C-alpha cells in the first residue's frame, strides 16, 4: 500500500457541499492521489506545478486553458468526472499531447431513471400536487388532471447509452417509442420495437413527449428552437437532460408563453443557476431541477472512482480505461 508521499499528485477544483465535490467523495480521490486544491495551487504554483501529473475536472472546473497547461510540464492527463466533454478544448489538449478521459457509462442508468422521473412527474403534475396537499395556503384539489402516460408516444432524440435505457423504461409504461439519431441503430430498434426517424422535424409532430439526450456538438447546438417547438403538438411536454445549449432557451420561453407546447422540464439551463428573475423560474408549466441526472450516491461515487482509475492509468503509462480518443 503506497504511503501518501508515494501517491501521484493531481490538481482539482474544490469541496463545496452545494456547488462542487461534497466532502464524502474526497476519501475516494485520496485512495489514489495526493490532492492539490485549486485555491492552494493558485496561491503557490511553484510549489506544486512540477509534481502535478493529472487534473480531475468536476462541474467544468478547473477550466483548462493554454495558460494553465503552460505551468504544468509533467501533466499527463485531464480526467473529466462526467459524460460530457463539451467544456474541454480537446484540440488544445491534443496539440499538447495530453490524454483525456471521461466517464460515459457509470451513470447511464441513473440518468435514464432521472429522465423518466422528470417525464412522469411533469405529465402528472407531481410538484403541483405536493403543494396542494401539504401547503396550507394552497387549496386541497382532487382535480389536478395530468396527461395520460400509458399508451402515449415518446420521441427520444439521441439513442446512445442513456437514450436506449430511457426507451426500456418507457416501454414498461406501454408507451410507443420513436427515436431520432444521426446514426440509425437497427439492432436496438429490433430489440425494443422502436421506430426510427431520420429527420427530427418528422419525429416531433408525432410525439406526446420529447426528450433530448444528445451530447453537445456543433450539430446538436441549438437543435431545438422556434421551428421545432412549432412542429410539436400543443399538448406535448419537452424534457431536456442533455446540455442547455442544445435548446435555444429564449425561443423555448416564447413557445411556453404562447402555449405552443404544454410544458417543459429542464435539468440543465443557461446559465446554471438561472438568475432570479428569469421567466423560466416563474412559469407554472416549467419544471427546473439542478443538474441531478447522475445523483445517486452509488452513481456519483462510481463516477469519481472511474475518473480516478483512468487518471492513475495514464500516470502509470498504462492503457487508459474510458479514454477520449482525440
Amino acid at each position, binding site marked *: 500500500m503506497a504511503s501518501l508521499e508515494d501517491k501521484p499528485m493531481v490538481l482539482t477544483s474544490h469541496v463545496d457541499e*452545494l*456547488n462542487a465535490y461534497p466532502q464524502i467523495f474526497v476519501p475516494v480521490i485520496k485512495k489514489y492521489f495526493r490532492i492539490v486544491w485549486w485555491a492552494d495551487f493558485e496561491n503557490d504554483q511553484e510549489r506544486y506545478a512540477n509534481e502535478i501529473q493529472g487534473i480531475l475536472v468536476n462541474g467544468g472546473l478547473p477550466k483548462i486553458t493554454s495558460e494553465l497547461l503552460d505551468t504544468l510540464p509533467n501533466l499527463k492527463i485531464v480526467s473529466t468526472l462526467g459524460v460530457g466533454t463539451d467544456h474541454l478544448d480537446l484540440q488544445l489538449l491534443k496539440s499538447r499531447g495530453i490524454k483525456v478521459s471521461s466517464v460515459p457509462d457509470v451513470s447511464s442508468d441513473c440518468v435514464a431513471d432521472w429522465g423518466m422521473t422528470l417525464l412522469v412527474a411533469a405529465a402528472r403534475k407531481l410538484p403541483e400536487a405536493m403543494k396542494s*396537499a401539504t401547503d396550507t395556503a394552497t387549496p386541497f384539489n382532487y382535480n389536478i388532471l395530468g396527461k395520460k402516460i400509458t399508451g402515449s408516444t415518446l420521441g427520444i432524440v439521441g439513442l446512445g447509452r442513456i437514450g436506449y435505457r430511457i426507451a426500456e423504461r418507457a416501454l414498461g409504461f406501454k408507451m410507443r417509442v420513436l427515436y431520432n439519431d444521426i446514426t440509425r441503430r437497427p439492432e436496438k430498434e429490433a430489440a425494443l420495437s422502436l421506430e426510427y426517424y431520420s429527420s427530427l422535424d418528422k419525429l416531433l409532430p408525432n410525439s406526446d413527449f420529447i426528450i433530448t439526450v444528445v451530447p453537445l456538438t456543433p450539430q446538436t447546438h441549438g437543435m431545438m428552437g422556434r421551428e421545432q417547438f412549432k412542429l410539436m403538438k400543443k399538448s406535448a411536454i419537452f424534457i431536456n437532460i442533455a446540455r442547455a445549449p442544445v435548446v435555444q432557451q429564449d425561443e423555448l420561453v416564447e413557445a411556453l408563453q404562447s402555449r405552443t407546447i404544454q410544458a417543459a422540464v429542464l435539468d440543465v439551463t443557461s446559465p446554471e443557476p438561472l438568475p432570479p428573475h428569469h421567466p423560466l423560474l416563474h412559469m407554472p408549466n416549467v419544471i427546473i431541477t439542478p443538474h441531478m441526472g447522475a445523483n*445517486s450516491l452509488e452513481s456519483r461515487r462510481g463516477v469519481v472512482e472511474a475518473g480516478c482509475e483512468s487518471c492513475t492509468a495514464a500516470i502509470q503509462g498504462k492503457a487508459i480505461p474510458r479514454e477520449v480518443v482525440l
Partner: protein
Amino acid sequence: MADKPLVVASLADHELYVKIVEEHFRVVWWEDYIKGPEKYNNDIQGILVDAYGRLKRVDGSLLDHLPNLKIVSTLSVGTDHLDLELLFKRGIKVSRVPDVSSDCVADWGITLLVGMARRIVEGVDSAKNPATPFDFNIMGKKITGSTIGVVGFGRIGYKIAERAYGFSMKVLYYDVFRRSEEEEKKIGATYYSSVDEMLPHCDFVILIVPLLPTTRGMIGKKQFELMKNSAILVNVARAQVIDQDALVEALKNKTIRSAAIDVTYPEPLPDDHPLRFLDNIIITPHMGANSEESRRGVVVAGVKSCIAGVKGEPIPNEMLQSMMY
C-alpha cells in the same frame, strides 16, 4: 325532463362530471339534497358517489330514507365506503369501475416512487425557489436494479410491477392469490405468501390492496421495523391500510427513509397534522386516476351502470355479493 330518473350525486365538483351525468339523469347534487332531503327521497332511484365528494359513506343513515332506490354506482375501484352487507340485504344493486383507471393509477404509483426516490420535489425547490440554495448535490436513491415489494397484485399491482420491471427492478409481490407461472416469469416476479417475510428484502414497498378487514392497518409499527432503514414506502391504496400514527413515528425516527402517500386519513389532513411538517414525505391529493381520459372514462362507465340499474337491465361492472373478499 320528467322522463329522466332522479339520482342523488355526491361527486367532485368538476364540470367534467356535470355534463355526462345530466345528459342521462335528473340530478340532485349532494349539497342541495342535504338542504331538504324530504323533497327528493321518494323519487331517488340511483346514487352516484365517488371517493372525492362530500358523502363519505353510503350506509343506513342515507339508505333508510330512499324507498325507491335501485342502484348505488360508485365511480371508483374501491367499495370500502359502501355498506355492502346492508345494500345486498336490501336487494339494492351495486356497481363500481374496476378497470378504467388501472393504467393511470399504476403510472401514478410509479411516479410517486421515482419522485420520492430521486427527491424531485426538493430538486424543483432548489432550482426555482429563491429562498432555497441551488444545490448540485441532492443525492437520491438508485432505482435501477433495486428491489420493489408490491403489496397487492391485482390489476393495478401487476401493472405497477410491469413498470418497475422496465427500470430493471427486481419484483417481489404479496397477495392472497398467486399469479400464474407465466405471469410471474414475464416480469421476473417472486411470490411471498407473507408480507412480513417480504418486507426486509425491499428497497421500495408499494401498497395497492383494497381496504378490507384483513388489510386494515396491515402496515404498522412491526412492519416498519421489518423494513430496511433505507426503504421507501408508497401508498396508492387506502389510507387505513397503514397505521398512520405509526407512519409518523417511523418517518420521524428514520425507521424507514421516506414515504409518498396519495391517500390520508382524513383527506385532507388538518393544518397542524405532523405529516405536513416532515421533510421525508410526499403527500398528494388522491390523484391516482387523474388523467382527463381516465376520470372521464370512469364517469361514463359508472353512469352507464347506473342507467342499467335504474332500468332493471343487466348491469355492466356489477358488484355481486360473491365478489366480496
